[in-house]
């Protein structure tokens, strides 16, 4: 495990400032610190954070933003360790933050189409898994 911090500190600080409003979730950040040194520990932190958000019913745009920031943090910590170029951070940030307008879109369409968000998500997950399994097994 090597420690190399460049840009990953920024999403971490934003995440910290947002979590200050949720004292129940704050202890998780201690585990989040390990995300700077290990991707696996970062994933454990992300899973626990998502579980806590579900358990405490912290959803909506804030919930998505918290997950996006946690993901951005562990992925950029990985890029820091791999000495990636700035372009990669940009692609990562844009990709992760795309989940916010997607959520808003689904949310705005939800009143028109009952339980649309869940249906859409289920569909997305199935498509994604299909592509993934085809790529790993087929090529």
């Amino acid at each position, binding site marked *: 495990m090597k420690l190399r911090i460049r840009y990953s500190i920024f999403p971490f600080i934003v995440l910290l400032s947002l979590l200050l409003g949720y004292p129940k979730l704050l202890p998780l950040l201690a585990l989040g610190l390990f995300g700077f040194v290990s991707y696996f520990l970062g994933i454990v932190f992300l899973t626990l954070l998502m579980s806590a958000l579900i358990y405490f019913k912290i959803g909506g745009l804030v919930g998505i933003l918290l997950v996006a920031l946690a993901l951005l943090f562990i992925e950029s910590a990985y890029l820091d360790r791999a000495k990636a*170029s700035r372009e*990669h951070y940009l692609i990562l940030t844009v990709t992760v933050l795309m989940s916010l307008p997607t959520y808003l879109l689904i949310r705005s369409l939800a009143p028109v189409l009952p339980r649309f968000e869940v249906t859409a998500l289920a569909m997305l997950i199935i498509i*994604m898994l299909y592509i993934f399994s085809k790529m790993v097994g087929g090529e």
Partner: protein
Amino acid sequence: MKEFKEDKYQTRGKTIQLLLALWLSTLIAFFFLRWDMVYLTLPILWLFFVALAFFKPKLDVEVKRLIPHDRILEGEIVEIKLKIKSNERIPSLRIVEDLPKGLELVEGDKEFLISIKKGEVRELSYKVRIRRGIYEFNYVKVEYQDPFGFFKKEKIVELYDEIVGVPKLEDVVTPYSTKGTKVTIGTLPSPRVGEGVEFHAIREYQPGDPLKIINWKATAKTGEIMSNEYESERKVDVVLIVDATYRGKDVFDYLIRATASFMLDCLNNGTSFGLLLAEEVPLWIRVDYGKRHFFKCVDFLSMAKPDKNNMIAYQVEHLLKTKFPARAQILYFSPLITEEGMEALKLLYHYGYKVVVISPNPYSVFEPKSEEEELALKLLNLKRKAQLRRLAAYGIIIDWDIKKPLKSSIAEVVKI
């Protein structure tokens, strides 16, 4: 540049970990009966979607390696450049250089992660310190991974290059007479074949003497026809013998440096020389002249390694009966630390060869750290001195304290 291996797409460990996180979160959402909150996985889904849909290159890259010289003096620092040209846009290209073992990386890294556009040429570099030896670069591994590091594809580009780390040269003086029996040819100090050009004495004219050697001044003075007499420019053959015993491994590099330095001295003196590397499997390079021969010998010296050889006396005896030129001058490079090594010297003497021994003191590399160590070193040095004194009957022995220049060690023994 030739490609010889291409791999399929591979899933990386972190992909599995993130997928697990995705599944666990989905299961937890269902477990707590808050299945609608499964939308929290949207950022992860976006990440996978973008990685799969937008980043899938063919790895169409050309790689060249630029090395300033193929022969480099040991201890020097060299900048090695990798020129990468991509025929497609690759947002995340990892390049791994096949850095041979033994080269010390002093600046930069052997791995690079770059982002490259179509048609762009990038130059990457790193610096290494060269040690004595031959170093082979066989390939460069190019590896694509999507910007998030989920999937990778690698290709090995065959790219062969070689660096010979040649031994450092010491300043030396010739500790033996170069005059011998062999007539030399070529661009050597003796331009005339036969009688030589170096003035030796004046004598009376003898019938048959060419007119141009008549000394007219002396003839006028004495009233008799006098001729100049020239010293013959015949040269001696030099045979360099390297005792590659593993017990002298601490001073082995010095041994090789001394050998290369004396070889260069032979080249400058115009003497022919041969080399015997007494490793476990002995290597004999026959006596010859010239720069090409010199570089050939230096290449072999660059590869020489201390070996578990306890047959040097046998090897020397066999070769001096079959290959060594008669009346050759022997330069014997040995730490004189093994019985066999000393026996080889005695054999050379008994067969009538003139021997100069250059013996780096194996104890001079150590710095005593305590009084006990200092005393032990003193005792070992005394024992060595006594041994060398006994061996002095068999040849000129130059005991080289490696902390001093070799030239001054020679000057202590041989009058220059």
